[in-house]
């Protein structure tokens, strides 16, 4: 041990340096958030509670009941029951998501060819019974009205509905225009 090292050791230099750093942090502003009082802005596209998209033209769900989301779901928490309606059209009777089983991977959003299911930014929900987490079609449509209504919902699919091609925006608009013309 050299003299230099010995002096450093008996004077507790390395510990004093560490203490200086912690004391410096005492006067810097705090980075912690006082959670229930102070809330963070939700990040756009954050994967939270599910919603079924309400078609603004018909006022009903956009879902056509193809069942791709249920097929893609790795935890198999989506249940769809369909029947034959007027003019032999497929009618979605029940569309149910067991939220407690969901892993929030958003593969259902990716699988849906119509952009009919979405994950909202809402993540703070709780309940006392399992039934409260069994979201029926009506409740899922309500979620859409609550958290994604208006411009936010329209923006959602433009931004987070993937994968997309390079000219996605123009192509999607063309498809939408065709849909409107059909209606």
């Amino acid at each position, binding site marked *: 041990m050299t003299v230099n090292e010995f002096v450093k050791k008996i004077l507790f230099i390395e510990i004093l340096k560490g203490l200086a750093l912690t004391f410096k942090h005492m006067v810097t502003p705090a980075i912690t958030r006082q959670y229930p009082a102070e809330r963070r802005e939700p990040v756009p596209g954050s994967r939270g509670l599910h919603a079924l998209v309400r078609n603004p033209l018909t006022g009903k769900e956009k879902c056509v009941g193809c069942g791709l989301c249920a097929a893609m779901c790795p935890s198999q928490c989506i249940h769809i029951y369909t029947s034959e309606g007027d003019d032999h059209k497929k009618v979605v009777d029940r569309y149910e998501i067991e939220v407690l089983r969901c892993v929030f991977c958003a593969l259902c959003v990716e699988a849906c060819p119509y952009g009919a299911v979405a994950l909202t930014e809402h993540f703070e929900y709780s309940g006392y019974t399992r039934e409260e987490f069994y979201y029926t079609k009506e409740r899922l449509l309500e979620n859409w009205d609550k958290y994604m209504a208006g411009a936010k919902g329209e923006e959602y699919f433009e931004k987070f509905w993937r*994968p997309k091609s390079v000219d996605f925006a123009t192509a999607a608009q063309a498809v939408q225009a065709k849909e409107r013309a059909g209606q």
Partner: protein
Amino acid sequence: MKNNSEDLDNPEHERLSTKELTLNLGPQHPATHGVLRLVLDLEGETVVKCTPYIGYLHRGVEKLAEHRNYLQILPLTDRLDYISSMSNNIGYCVALEKLFAIEVPERTQFIRTIVAEMSRIANHLLWLATHALDIGAMTVFLYCFREREKIMDLFERLCGARLTVSYPRIGGLKNDVDPQWLEDLYKFTDEFPMRVEQYETLIDKNRIWLRRTKGVGIISAEDAINWGMSGPALRGSGVPYDVRKAMPYGAYDKVKWEVPTGKNGDVYDRYRVRMEEFRQSNSIIRQCMEKLPEGPIMADAPKFTLPAKDKVLSDMEHLIHHFILITKGPQTAPEGEIYVATEVPKGELGFYFISDGTGRPYRMRIRAPSFVHVATLPKLCEGELIADVIANIGSIDIVLGECDR
């Protein structure tokens, strides 16, 4: 109890006083990093025998994978090593791309390298935080989580989830990065080396830290190789083996970086290796961001990757591919076996697939670094003090989600 000379001469007393003590550590012990259970046979304070018991977090990921198609397995890999799920996702995708012979675009390679290194930093931050907390340095814990939070926020902005990211896809990525995100990441990398220096100020030369880590849990280079160790735990013993250098994937062969190694193979050297990896990862991210090429992010492989949404709605073939891929998985998967290893923060993560040509793997086997490292615990702990067991568990950086699968 009577305490007289008559009792001390009793042969029964002698037998009792020399008995070894068996101590059960875990599975709910906070310092065992999950649900690791160790049964320690103690003689005084010295560990005579250490037996790890694993399996408390077994979820049967490998079996579950056999019942899901290749696209659905991705969220399962998030839950192996949940501290750095991005690396697991990338390991899974890289393995399957090799099996399917998919050419991945260059931009994707660079973005994957960036996010993999971000997850390495996030993992090492959590490791440093908990390792220091185990040994008794509380302040480092708080500082590390401050930086980890920033990376988690960046992940959330990138893909919508903080921990279970599911960001890469077979043949590409979920989405492209936006310029604002890159700018914020650049700011983070600017600031981060200064933060690493701060952690080092706190513990690098601290005499308590040195006494607790130097000369503890020594494993020689030869032993480390024989026990199958990998990652920083192996490099701490002085073996410069890194999968990123040995079998480059992503953009690792296109950037300049070094493999930090230790010398003595003790807890302190493994700590030093990881601290150096902070700096190397930071520099890799910087270089990748500077070199980030333009271009598509999805490979042109319609039989394996989901088609673009607008094409699904306007094109017959794409619609068919979309339905087949989701309901049955890739139907043209080649038959055969493949093992592909990637370097995750904890070591070498290997995915071994047996494909029988259907959309599902016939068998998926995961070579998890934590599993191998848990097996080395008896080697590291036996003959040392009981307090060193905690330091050893911290230094090999295990996560039981990956170990038990």
